């Protein structure tokens, strides 16, 4: 499955959270909730659904190591793949363009 811009807000925020560094599942969830200022009330089920898709699309991979002092009950750590970084960068650029309005693409047809 291909995931490419424009991304769903939840997906974008998950990638954004992982861009800061490898995180375990719940840490990503928390980061998304905070980054979005609570606008994305990510629940466990939806989060893992998105995560599954990201892994399938090879934007995210399961990280190998985990800190030595980590709680063993926690699940795996996740990490952004190079491809995930590219997609995130592309999406950031797209949003930036939208805001600055530099290359105007006014046509509705095109934006669809």
């Amino acid at each position, binding site marked *: 499955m291909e995931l490419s811009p424009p991304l769903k807000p939840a997906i974008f925020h998950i990638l954004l959270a992982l861009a800061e560094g490898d995180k375990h599942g719940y840490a990503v969830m928390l980061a998304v909730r905070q980054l979005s200022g609570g606008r994305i009330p990510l629940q*466990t089920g939806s989060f893992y659904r998105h995560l599954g898709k990201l892994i399938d699309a090879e934007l995210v991979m399961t990280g190998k190591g985990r800190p030595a002092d980590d709680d063993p009950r926690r699940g795996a750590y996740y990490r952004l793949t190079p491809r995930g970084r590219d997609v995130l960068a592309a999406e950031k650029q797209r949003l930036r363009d939208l805001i600055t309005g530099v290359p105007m693409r006014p046509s509705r047809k095109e934006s669809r």
Partner: protein
Amino acid sequence: MHRDPDWPSRLYRWALRAYPRHVRHQFEAGMLDAFTQDLAQVRPRGPVSLAGFLVVTCVQAIWFGLVERLPKPRPVLLTLRDAFRSLRSARLVSLVAVGSLALGIGANAALFSILNGLVFKPLPVREPSRLALLEPGAWSNPVWEEIRDHHASQTDRVFAWSVERFDLSAHGEMDVVDGIYASGSLFDVLGVPAALGRTLGPRDDMFGGGVDGPVVVLGHDFWQRRFGGALDIVGRTLTIERRPFTIVGVLPRTFFGPDVGRVADVVLPLGAAAFVEQRRAQFRTASTWLNIIMRLRPGESLDSTAEALRAVQPQIRLTTQPPDRSPARHLADPFVLVSAENGRSTLRNRYEQPLTIILAVAGIVLVIACANLANLLLARAAARRAEFSLRLALGASRARIAGHLLFESLLLATAGALLGMLGAAWGSALLVRQISTPTVPVAIDLAMDVRVVGFAILAGLVTALLFGLGPAIGLSRVPPTDMLKSSGRGVVGHQRGVVRNVFLAAQVSLSLVLVVSAGLFLRTLVSLTSVSLGFDPDRLLVAAMNVQRSDVPPERRAELCDRLRAAVVSVPGVSTAAVSYMTPLTMRGWNGPVEVPGRPRLSDRERLAWVNVLSPGWFSTYGIRVVRGRDIADADRRGGERVALVNEAFANRFFGGEDPVGRQVVGGTASDHSHTVIGVVTDVVYRSQRVGVPPTMYVPWAQLDDVFPTFSITVRTAASPTAQLTRAIGDALLREDGAVAFTIRDLKDQHRATLSQERLIAMLSGFFGVLAMLLAALGLYGVTRYTVSRRRAEIGVRLALGATRRMVTQLVLRRVAVPIVGGIAIGVVLSLWASRFVGTLLFGLEPRDPATLIGASAVLLGLGLLSGWLPARRAARIDPVAVLRE
């Protein structure tokens, strides 16, 4: 409140079970972690928040979990590749599967495409659903003209036609093709345009030729065959019945005429019938030789239009009342309209039932083949248990594995169906050739259409499901740990054995039904073949004559007959020859009601006697004995006393044992004729063996008022007839009169041809019966052999512990006997029930013929035990030492 403070986690854990195994494996720890952390935050906010949180998380888990379980769409090509690979790895199984499916589906598609062409296909004309055939029976020309001129307004349009055979030869040996006389409105009403030139119109349909003189339209196939599809065909001349006709057009390739089962090679305007003597005579009489089709107006039904026609029926009766017919019988039956969407067909009436029965038979064979395949695949699937447990252990979903198996079946079925369709195209053409005889050529449009293709697709899908579903369901139950266990040790479970036995019993019972029906049809053919004809068909040649174009005037035809007969007798190699109007076994006949003065009047049906008109020497040519009285003599001529011979069946029915010689018989040839019976002859088959010997009277040729232009000269040859002799007879006929037309045939071929339907049914049902039996035997053999191989270890142990080889053989055979005996018992019941459908096709035996039932059961029992005994013997030869060492 709760003893276990962690109950929400347990609830959530329970909800997570909705996820498929591989997802749980991947994410369960993380999900539980996230849940616990969130829970820790929500709990202090009170029970309402907690409840809300739990509902949201658990519902989400269950919902998403179930969604994950749905099979994900997988690229078709990948699935195809997988299925193809696994089929290739079991080449033999796949070949057997594709082969038997091709055979099964092909046979079904072949029969269906014939049935389709004969019964289901609508005429290739404009809006065929609005066409209606005027029934009952056929109509005379006056009736047709009355309807055309005065009552056609009851319908949209109307046309009439008559089925004919035309002689295209210039002289000598006849060159007969099928054709029709069509009223000028036929093409207009049907909406059939010409492929080349023009079709016929009202201005062509005039008594004795239209504005352009005698014209003809050719059938497409005939145009290709005779004229190589010449584009300059329009304007050329074609000799029909010795008269030049101008070709004005060619029909489209798809249109064969209004009759299904025969092709109109030439279409002549109805008015051209005036050129052919017999038809000209019928133009003004009550003779019924025309069929009428109407086009209903939009929105009108068959019933309402028929109603309107019945309203004017008295009027039509009045104006068309022939003087020589009693008013009570003229157009006595009320008009009825039947849908003519699929055209008219006499062939349909004759073959619809046999074809449907054979199609059912072929369907059963396909089911048997499916059961075989299901067993084969079950066995193969069992052998693939390891593969599938491995897949399951590696995380494949059961749905995907089952889907994979079904896809394999579908692939097999598709290959089988495609091959089968190829075979069907060839097979159906072959079958049609089988039912076609020189005198009645049969042509059915076998072109594949939506129905045939749909039928094949449906057959393929149903078979794929039938034989693919069992293994798919069975296999998806395999526990993933199965591969870890070594297979082959221990007693094999009975559970799957039951399914196999049910399949086997079903196969045996169905094949018994088919073997029984094959037996019934074969015995019917045998008893029909052995019906006493009353004469010896060997060394008999029949020259079917047409002297219409001879210069000899009709009133002197009797002499011409005599001269032609004499010419034939003078040919070396000819023993005797005689002239008759009808030839036995040609399915043609002439009958009329008969009365015997002084005897009680019989019912209308019983009064019907069959008539033939003969020259002297006819009986001796056929080898028919005159048991009482005398034969026809040369002295029995016109003007003298009308005489007749009758057969024994006639004597029994009309004279009830009294001596008929010297008595009077009224009727037969014409209602006002009275004949003196001069002799009684032995019984002879008249139209066909099945009809048997009807009461028949024979009258002298020389006493006819009008001598027919068509008759036969039957020749008894000294030795077996050769092509050379046939040619010599033809030459002799032409030397006598160069303008006569004739066809010379061996009566033995005719004899064979009358049984073509019975032979075809016997052949097909025999073929399918044997096929079904072999398939069932193969199934029994395969399954037994498989079971034996699975039980190798067990049998080895038994042998090691002292069981004798005999005991082992019996052990295996006892197992096989169960489905065989059970299957035969069910099969007997099924056969008894199914016998009701074949009753009318049988001859000389009852549908529940015990001998056939017992014989078929014995054959199946023997074959079944043999196919069980072969693997049993193998089992008994197992070397216990070798098995134990494995």
